[in-house]
């Protein structure tokens, strides 16, 4: 991730208004806590562009954003059961 600026949350809090004024439409400000970036500030236009592009990419795959949480990993046990049930000659 390329940040326009990285700043501790404690320093950002009192100057948030002026930080937002400096925010470019394509840039990201990183907010740190304990030395790690824990949040970001982006412009509404930039967020909109990210979400639109994500939708375009997902449309080219078989992934459905709505149902993605229900895509799961099969257990070895259920696969074994399926193969047993699927066999045409027992």
């Amino acid at each position, binding site marked *: 991730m390329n940040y326009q600026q990285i700043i501790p949350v404690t320093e950002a809090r009192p100057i948030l208004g002026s930080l937002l004024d400096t925010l470019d439409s394509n840039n990201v400000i990183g907010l740190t806590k304990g030395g790690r970036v824990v949040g970001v500030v982006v412009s509404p236009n930039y967020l909109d562009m990210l979400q639109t592009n994500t939708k375009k990419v997902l449309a080219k795959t078989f992934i459905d954003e709505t149902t993605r949480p*229900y895509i799961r990993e099969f257990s*070895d046990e259920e696969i074994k059961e*399926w193969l047993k049930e699927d066999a045409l000659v027992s």
Partner: protein
Amino acid sequence: MKKLKSGSRKTRLFLDSSVLFSAVWSMTGGSAKIISWAQEKKIEVVVSKNVVAEVEKNVGNKLDEIYWPRLENLLSFLEIDRTTTDRDEFEKAKEVIISKDAVILVDAKRCQVDVLVTLDKKDMLQPKVHKFMRPIKVMTPKEIIEMLEKQN
């Protein structure tokens, strides 16, 4: 073999993830046989993008790389419905079955199939699911093969 028809048209089946995954794994099982009938255009077989996404994930995690071309080959004989799952229908389906399977019920209904084919006897082949899916039947590959061979 003649075309396997339901009335005056070909029988239309929806495969859930268990069936597509088993067809990838085993070339001699009932699931693979159903897809071979689709290849011969005796029946119509449809899967949803949710089914494909789930099977892709599990082929990647559970099987060797050599199974990838087989999955691609099998998919080339199937109709893939890319419609996004309707949220209201999904909520209704969740009243009869757990979320992971509710997605499949909604997808099968939307695809206007004659039969939902599944190997998941524990969750899918239950009276409440049969009732919810009417007039769509819910059957195992073995059952649908027997039924279609008898009709023929």
